[in-house]
């Protein structure tokens, strides 16, 4: 959390710093199948977030000791580029944050992928944050779902993700970096849009039960819209080749 003396006014007349309403998500653009070597890929722009996701597999499981005789194992890497932040140059390589996020993201996809179809194999999911402006794990999950579908890997749903929480005393959705730094709470969610099952849930900061349910409501609404953008991106690959 940043220094309080620099805290900007996050809400003015119900509008946010960038003019959005509390329940309004940033603009999302997704392009599938943009990489040449990967089995599936997606490039996503979500506000100022720019994210590349790719999938390899199912393939032979390396290292061998990871292998599961009953299902495919999923490897997931979430990583931020050293130039992805508006501030100073970052370090490359995994850190404690990226390791935790890689784990919770992997668990999302272990839920939706029919891993039992491909015993003894591995499916690798790579999420590279090229530019980050708040909500990168949610944007990364949204992009990775499209990359998995693009790879033709059977799964239950195109998972969509978005963060909700509280800024300037109000419940809102999809926070930018500044809002996240100075807001009261942050609740990233990944949701299967088909049945609203919550597959990733993390939270920091404070929320009442009422606020939490209001936030869930906002997330369920947003996820429908995000899912539409995802499906269009998956389909678009097959529409421009006439």
């Amino acid at each position, binding site marked *: 959390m940043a220094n309080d003396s620099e805290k900007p006014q996050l809400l003015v007349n119900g509008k946010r710093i960038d003019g959005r309403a509390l329940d309004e998500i940033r603009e999302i653009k997704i392009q599938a199948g943009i990489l040449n070597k990967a*089995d*599936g890929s997606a490039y996503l722009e979500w506000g100022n977030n720019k994210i590349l996701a790719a999938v390899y*597999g*199912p*393939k*032979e499981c390396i290292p061998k000791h990871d292998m599961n*005789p009953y299902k495919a194992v999923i490897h997931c890497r979430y990583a931020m580029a050293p130039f992805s932040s508006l501030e100073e140059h970052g370090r490359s390589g995994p850190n404690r944050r990226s390791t935790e996020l890689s784990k919770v993201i992997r668990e999302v996809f272990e839920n*939706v992928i*029919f891993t039992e*179809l*491909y*015993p*003894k*194999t591995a499916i690798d999911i790579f999420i590279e944050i090229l530019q980050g402006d708040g909500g990168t794990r949610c944007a990364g999950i949204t992009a990775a779902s499209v990359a*998995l*579908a*693009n*790879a*033709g*890997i*059977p*799964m*239950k*749903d*195109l998972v969509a993700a978005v963060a909700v929480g509280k800024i300037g005393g109000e419940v809102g959705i999809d926070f930018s970096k500044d809002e996240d730094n100075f807001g009261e709470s942050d609740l990233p969610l990944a949701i*299967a*849009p*088909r*049945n609203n099952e919550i597959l990733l849930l993390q939270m920091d900061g404070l929320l009442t039960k009422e606020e939490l349910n209001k936030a869930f409501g906002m997330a369920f609404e947003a996820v429908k819209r995000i*899912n539409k953008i*995802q*499906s269009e991106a*998956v*389909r678009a690959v*097959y529409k421009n*080749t*006439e």
Partner: protein
Amino acid sequence: MRIVVPGEMIADSPKEISYAYIDGDKTYSSVVGLFSEQDLRLIPLQGPYVPITEDVVVGVVEDVKFAGYNMDITSPYKGFLLAKECGREQFDLGDIVLAKVRDVDEVKNVNLIEPRKLLNGEIIEISSVKVPRVIGKKSSMLEMIKAATKCEIHVGKNGRIWIKGQNSATATRAILKIEKEAHTDGLTDRIGAFLKEQTGDINGQ
């Protein structure tokens, strides 16, 4: 026919459809694919190759062992060709071999039979889900390409294709065009026209 995506409902009752799954009383697609309402068929537009019995595949010898050969068959699972299936023929590392899948056991060993070495050709690889389009109904597409280019062509179910002949470049281009446009209508006519245009040039020289 329409393009469906994972999680999209394709029937509001439980139906057994390949690449789809049933949840509660409804049926959903699990892949990006072409779905036909009339015959309730879902054809994936992308996806890995998983070998099944009777598939003819184009493999590459990856390891030579006493008992036989390990073969790469562009699948997460390796093929194995028992030496005794090869008669007098012996294979070397890197040889390209046409073979049939006898069976796939429960630990996903893929047993190959009826090997045949393919010599001095070119190899291209396409997505295995597009192979049915390259072959066409009753082999019509493949026969058309063979006739027009006078190439010898072997199409593996695994998406690996072996081509040999003077006009192999034209055959390659035609096959890559099929892969790219596999989901569109009128493909046979377009490929026919493409082949005519290409081979016409060659004959006209």
